[in-house]
């Protein structure tokens, strides 16, 4: 891969990689680490992409893989006495809606992000997350249900606005 090709993909999809990692890890430093790792993998890749979309799909897939690895190991790096732990800290840059999504389990929020923000199809989400299409559909459905319950529990919200996140 030439420097020009690398820079083109990095500049166009770097934020997408970062957002995938952030949805998985809910930590800006960790998400930045994953993004850097993904960019290194991109730079080392020798096979050309067929198109920008092909490159984007590859980047999202690798971002999910790298995030998953960091997510699996995160318990090791953050040993906090249970009595001191009150859940992941909300980043200041999270809006209220994003914050609600981030209260879900990683598999729900990643699939929601890929489907609703990146505009991936269920099949593309399944490929990125190494899951079956029916599993992804279940994740999206359960994610929406959990979100509704969460909003109801928080009070004041009548749930997800009908017709928008359905």
């Amino acid at each position, binding site marked *: 891969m030439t*420097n020009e090709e*690398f*820079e083109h993909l*990095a*500049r166009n999809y*770097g*934020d997408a990689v*970062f*957002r995938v990692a*952030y949805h998985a890890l809910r930590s800006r430093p960790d998400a*930045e680490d994953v*993004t*850097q*790792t993904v*960019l*290194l*993998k*991109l*730079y*080392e*890749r020798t096979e050309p992409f067929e198109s920008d979309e092909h490159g984007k799909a*590859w980047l999202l*897939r*690798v971002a*999910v*893989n*790298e*995030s*998953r*690895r960091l*997510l*699996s*190991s995160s*318990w*090791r790096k953050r040993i906090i006495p249970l009595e001191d732990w009150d859940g992941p800290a909300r980043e200041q*840059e*999270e*809006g*209220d*809606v*994003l914050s*609600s*999504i981030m209260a879900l389990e*990683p*598999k729900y929020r990643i699939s929601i*992000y890929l489907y*609703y*923000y990146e505009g991936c199809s269920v099949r593309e989400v399944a490929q990125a997350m*190494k*899951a*079956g299409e029916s*599993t992804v559909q279940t994740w999206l459905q359960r994610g929406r249900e959990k*979100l509704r319950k969460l*909003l109801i529990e928080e009070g004041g*919200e009548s*749930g*997800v*606005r009908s017709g*928008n*996140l359905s």
Partner: protein
Amino acid sequence: MFDLETYRDDCSRLTLGQDKLEEMISVTEKTNKKRLTRPVRTVLLTAVLAATLGTAALAANPEVAEKVQMFFGYTFAFTATDGSGLEAGVVVKPGNDAANIIAAGELPPMAFEVREGRSILTLDGKELDVTEAMEKDGYYQTEGDSYTLRVLPDGTAVVKLDNGTEDGISWTFPLTAEGAQLGDSKEVWYGTMDDEGNITPDEEGVQIETPHTFTEDEDGNLIPVGEE
């Protein structure tokens, strides 16, 4: 009000920032792959292992450290325990300076026995009578933060660690009335990783018979205790 457009707006504001992205691009392009000679890689590799497995007392086998170097350049994975729980599954990508964890989790100490006709599972110091669950379902199952534990009536434990995939990573091992813990179950096995970071563990594992303890030297190398 919650709606999709607001979510999209929130996501749009979640960016690396232009300066950070350009810095990452620059760092990536300046990375000199040839810099990573074999000795350097070995240090990096062992440093990652030390960080992954903990720098305090670590039950494993001295062969592990040798295998790290012996099989350097190949993908490998192993689990190790410190007697209190399963430590980790680790895969290191060949020809790269980064270790990749395929599954990691911490399990509580556990033991199983049949006492006066009742099936008793001791989990993290707490005794559970799982007789009825076993009679009804054929097993007792419980879930932790990153694992699912299923105990069969014969004392066989099946642990599935969540690694973010549908299948997870599974181990099967015996729990005995003598209080056997996961520290008695150690394996080394190998797998391969493609350029997207997908790992396929090989089926055959290599059993480690003798627990050992490692410390870490100032360069991050794992040193078996007694051999510093």
